């Protein structure tokens, strides 16, 4: 871990801040009525997405969820085109056809952002099968939440990937809630990575607030997958600081619980590491925050000024 270059660590930091600022901006424009639909904030989970995605190559493909702004940014997507997408603009990654829940940037290595819980896992299994048949050494990395581990998708996909030793890293981001349901009310075990045993694959549990730990664990799993060692179940323990979606009333948990979790803020924690190990000064980190805030203002301006899709194109992109 100590061998990571300063540039890499600073890029991790930058992407974590970019996710945070993107989410704060998205929630803001949502509250102001500038965008429709819904926004599922990834705040509190930045270290998970960044740690995993920065352990990937651009030809490794992720499969996202309804909560994938963070995964996209972590994989290198442009926040302006993402913002345009949540504004429903033609300049968005999905030409305004997808919206917040489906932001997909093929150019940065994505299979899609799928909002039916767990549905990305089987798709990643197939992508990994394709890689294998094509003689490529790419890896497929589907994300899901603690809630997703109770779906049939999860069971079927882990089993199929295991029997065929496919290059998949299944990432479960245990942010503790599926909408209102605490994860222990939905599964009978405390450690979700224990489920891997049932498929005969490694299960790894990692502190999802610590980007360096996630990066190391993901890197190991990715290397195993790439070198023919088969799939891994990687569980990142984090916390969903915001509501399930922007404006969600959160009647199922105490503010005290949320405030306690705020202490583990992955960005603040990483900032402390970076200043202590001499990677950057507090001023340099502050400059990153400023730079990214300016990026977000520019993204909103770009999105607001971009044209809507032309109604005459309503029947485009249904069939290839």
């Amino acid at each position, binding site marked *: 871990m100590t061998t990571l270059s300063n540039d890499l660590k600073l890029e991790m930091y930058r992407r974590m801040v970019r996710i945070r600022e993107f989410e704060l901006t998205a929630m803001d424009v949502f509250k102001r009525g500038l965008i429709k639909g819904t926004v599922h904030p990834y705040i509190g989970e930045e270290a998970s997405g960044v740690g995993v995605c920065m352990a990937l190559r651009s030809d490794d*493909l992720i*499969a996202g969820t309804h909560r994938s702004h963070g995964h996209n940014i972590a994989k290198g997507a442009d926040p302006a085109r993402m913002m345009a997408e949540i504004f429903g603009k033609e300049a*968005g*990654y*999905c*030409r*305004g*056809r*997808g919206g917040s829940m*489906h932001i*997909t940037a*093929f150019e940065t290595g994505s*299979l*899609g952002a*799928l909002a*039916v819980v767990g*549905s990305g*896992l*089987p*798709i*990643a*299994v*197939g*992508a*990994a*099968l*394709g*890689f294998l*048949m*094509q003689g490529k050494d790419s890896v*497929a990395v589907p994300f899901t939440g603690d809630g997703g581990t109770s779906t*049939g*998708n999860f069971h*079927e*996909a882990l*089993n*199929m990937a295991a*029997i065929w030793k496919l290059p998949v890293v299944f990432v479960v981001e245990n942010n503790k809630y599926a909408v209102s349901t605490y994860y222990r009310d939905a599964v009978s075990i405390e450690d979700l990575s224990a489920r891997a045993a049932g498929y005969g694959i490694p299960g790894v549990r990692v502190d999802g607030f610590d980007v360096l730990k996630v990066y190391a664990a993901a890197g190991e799993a990715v290397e195993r997958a790439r070198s023919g060692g088969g799939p891994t179940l990687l569980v990142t323990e984090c916390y969903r600081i915001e509501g399930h979606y922007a404006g969600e009333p959160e009647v199922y948990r105490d503010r005290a619980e949320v405030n306690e979790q705020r202490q583990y803020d992955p960005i603040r924690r990483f900032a402390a590491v970076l200043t202590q190990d001499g990677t950057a000064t507090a001023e340099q980190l502050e400059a990153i925050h400023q730079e990214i805030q300016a990026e977000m203002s520019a993204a909103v301006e770009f999105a607001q000024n971009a044209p809507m899709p032309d109604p005459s194109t309503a029947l*485009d*992109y*249904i*069939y*290839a």
Partner: protein
Amino acid sequence: MTNLTRDAVSLGAKAPVMPPDLIVQIPAGVPAKEMTMAEAIREALAEEMERDPRVFLLGEDIGKHGGAFGVTRTLFDRFGAERVRNTPISENTIIGAATGAALVGMRPVAEIMFVDFSGLAMDQIANQAAKLRLMTGGQAKVPWVLRMPQGGGAGKSTAAQHSQSLEVWYAHIPGLKVALPSTPYDAKGLMKTAIRDDNPVIFLEHKLLYSFRGLVPEQDYSLPFGKCDIKRLGSDVTIIASGYMVWHAMLAARTLEQEGISVEVVDVRTVSPLDEETIGASVRKTGRALVVAEACRSYGPTGEWAMVVMEQAFDYLKAPIRRLAGRFSPVPFADSLENGMWPDTEDVIAAARDLMQY
């Protein structure tokens, strides 16, 4: 049930029989081989696998065993376990995996043992594969084929969970295409097009038709999607049908011809996209329309086809549109109850005669 024994090919103890020369699609002189529909589908799969290394098969028991109906038999020995890939009983992930493989450039052909089980895969079919292209603004394409046996009938007695005709489940979903061939020739030609198509294609194979024999050209050919096939030209009544019902329509037409009633049979061999033009043109010519499907009556394909007739040919209608369709019931086991579940040749004859009263 009509008992058809004249000029008949036997298809097993209780199976129905149809005169083999009822549908002739290959002009004399064209080099052709006679084969069953199952063999025709297998030949299409094998030829496409030879032609394109991206094509592979996946499904339950499709390896050595050859699938529940033997369609993929011999392909495992020929192409190996990689490309004829046996899966666990995981319908949703079979289709999800097909989608993922298609997204990275493969051209999978998946099999679900019976269409009745496809509900387990419905999310991957209807929410993922069908929608990915639009949701990603055209970035994704999902070129897969999903083969599913469907249909029941005529004493096969496979009861409620192995006998349904579910083409409308899929024809209702934008982003999917749906084929339902009635002959070996159509099955092979449509399968080739399905595999070469860049969209997810639902390929429904009527179980009773697997053993039907017909001529298939020796030369490579493919058949277009979105085109009905006129199986027989006529001037008094248009029968619009698909799958196994095409055979009832053709047999009925033979009898009706002897009574001086000239029947045109329009085979909707791709249920989606639906060729409204051909249906419209035929009914504008005959002025009478009879829609026939094995699928349940309520909200079934017949309702859709009848509406197309209204939109395309209302001014030309000499009689109300008649429909024949499956009884709105789960399929019961006992012969006495299963009989009468679906329209048969006699029903078609009677309905056509009625139409001629106007």
